[in-house]
């Protein structure tokens, strides 16, 4: 097995008595596409919130490359190469699509670039390449709030990719994306992740997407890991089929 990039150890989190993580430990290995599946409200998004510093666990720790990041802010973790795409797109809705992208690209540049114009030919081209990847190149100059919800989702993913992360956390990347666009999008996304050597963790409800793209699946249920393994192994587990996949 390759080296561990991100590791969560013995996480405990509860909201009003409901356990979102009850002593969970997971490890994400370099180069893998780890899918997390599980019923709604089981704590999958909470895991992403903890790993990116948005909420702090009651106990337990999160390690990035062996360094404790449990108490770091989302900003500090993002600077360490962890990017996130959200379940509900988090965009600069009053700004153009291309400005959302260029601001993300500028965020990784040095301090000096902060006082130079945001729009440069190089940055615009780089932004358009990423927009092209998710099928939004034609919408570059639209105000992002005018995009349909599915396209906002794609833009959110492109913004996360613009940070050139080592680890990308995707929260339901295909929700809101039309059935016709779902597999082409995932094909393009997976290609981009492989070529850029980006490790990915994605929370997903679409089992066809999980079966096709995940290298490993982790089944989350009531704050615990119910099962773990390759997609074919996990989906052949009777308990998983009954409680999560929805077929007996």
């Amino acid at each position, binding site marked *: 097995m390759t080296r561990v990039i991100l590791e969560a150890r013995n996480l405990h989190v509860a909201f009003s008595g409901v356990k979102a993580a009850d002593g969970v430990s997971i490890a994400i290995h370099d180069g893998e596409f780890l899918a997390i599946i599980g019923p709604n409200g089981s704590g999958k998004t909470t895991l992403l919130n903890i790993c990116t510093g948005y909420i702090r666990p009651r106990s337990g720790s999160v390690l990035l490359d062996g360094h404790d990041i449990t108490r770091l802010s989302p*900003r500090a973790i993002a600077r360490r190469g962890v990017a996130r795409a959200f379940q509900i797109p988090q965009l600069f809705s009053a700004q153009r699509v291309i400005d959302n992208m260029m601001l993300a690209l500028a965020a990784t540049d040095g301090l000096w670039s902060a006082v130079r114009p945001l729009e440069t030919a190089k940055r615009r081209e780089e932004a358009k390449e990423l927009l092209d990847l998710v099928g939004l190149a034609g919408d570059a100059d639209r105000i992002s709030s005018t995009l349909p919800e599915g396209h906002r989702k794609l833009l959110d993913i492109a913004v996360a990719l613009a940070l050139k992360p080592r680890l990308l956390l995707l929260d339901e990347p295909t929700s809101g994306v039309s059935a016709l666009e779902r597999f082409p999008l995932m094909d393009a996304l997976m290609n981009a992740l492989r070529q850029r050597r980006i490790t990915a963790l994605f929370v997903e409800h679409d089992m066809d997407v999980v079966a096709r793209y995940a290298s490993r699946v982790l089944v989350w249920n009531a704050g615990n890991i119910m099962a773990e393994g390759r997609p074919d192994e996990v989906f052949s587990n009777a308990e998983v089929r009954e409680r999560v996949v929805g077929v007996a």
Partner: protein
Amino acid sequence: MREADDGGGVEGGVNGAEAQDLGLGTHREAEASELVYARSAIVVAAAVVTLAALPIAAPWLQFVLTLAIAKGFAALGVAVLLRAGLISIGHAMFFAASAYGVAVLARAGINDLGLLLVLSVLVAALVGAIAGSFLIRYRAIFFAMLNLAVSMVFYALCAKLYGVTGGTDGMPVPIPAVFGVVFTEPTFKNVLFYLSLALMVLVGLGVQRYLNSPLGHALSAVHTNEIRLEYLGIPVWAVLLIAYVISAALAGLGGAISGFAIGRVVPDFAFWTASGHLVLIAVLGGIGGVPGAFIGAVFLELLHSAAVTVTDAWNLMVGMTLIIVIMFMPQGFYGLFARKEALNL
């Protein structure tokens, strides 16, 4: 990056049409953008030449326009923060801090216009950095009210610390030397007007550059999504503090020019109605671009000058104008001059 895009046959199918159009589209966008810039530059140049010529035709306008430009700087400071959705009803504090700075420094023996301007703006920026370091933690009504509260504390200090500030009598601002040359009052006021006009163009270009930079775009982004900014690794507090200091410095520049133009600084410079006046100018002019603040200030000063000759109730006319602008011109007067594309710059 190019490799990544070439990698997936499927993605080519998805985006083929857009990809073919990409080169042509970029060319058209660049041409359109150049046209917008050229048009804006001509309009701005014409406006500056007109402003420069007006006092020659009507000398009484010189004082009015100098004050208008000074208030325009301060309103621009307010407008900078408005881009982040933050309304400051206390920016007259920085306006006054700088004007008092000029008076105190002049009393201490500094007698050069350039040096006094630079130092007084630094005073305003320093006060802005101190106040901003805790005010930027607040949003919406809390930010507005706390700015108001702090500015009124400053006002009270100016009015009560008689030994330092001269109390409600204020402090005189003597006529300084310009590069070692001492002018008569009319000549100095002439120099001050044209210097203000030149600064309006230079500082305006600097602020426009700031607003077009990643820092400026991040400032607008604070208004819509702070969470995403943090997840991009961009510190929201730094974006806001920089903006706050810049806005305080702009208000300070306006205050210093006003101090020189009027020849005296009084606590009323910092009163809350003065802060409200700056917000009024920013909204009238429009926050879409740098010229808006100056358009609003010139309009309001001219309206004021004309209205007082007709009626004592000039505030009524100003109020009516504001209602009309808010109802029918949400982008302010600047919206009338700027094309949609330019508003997004």
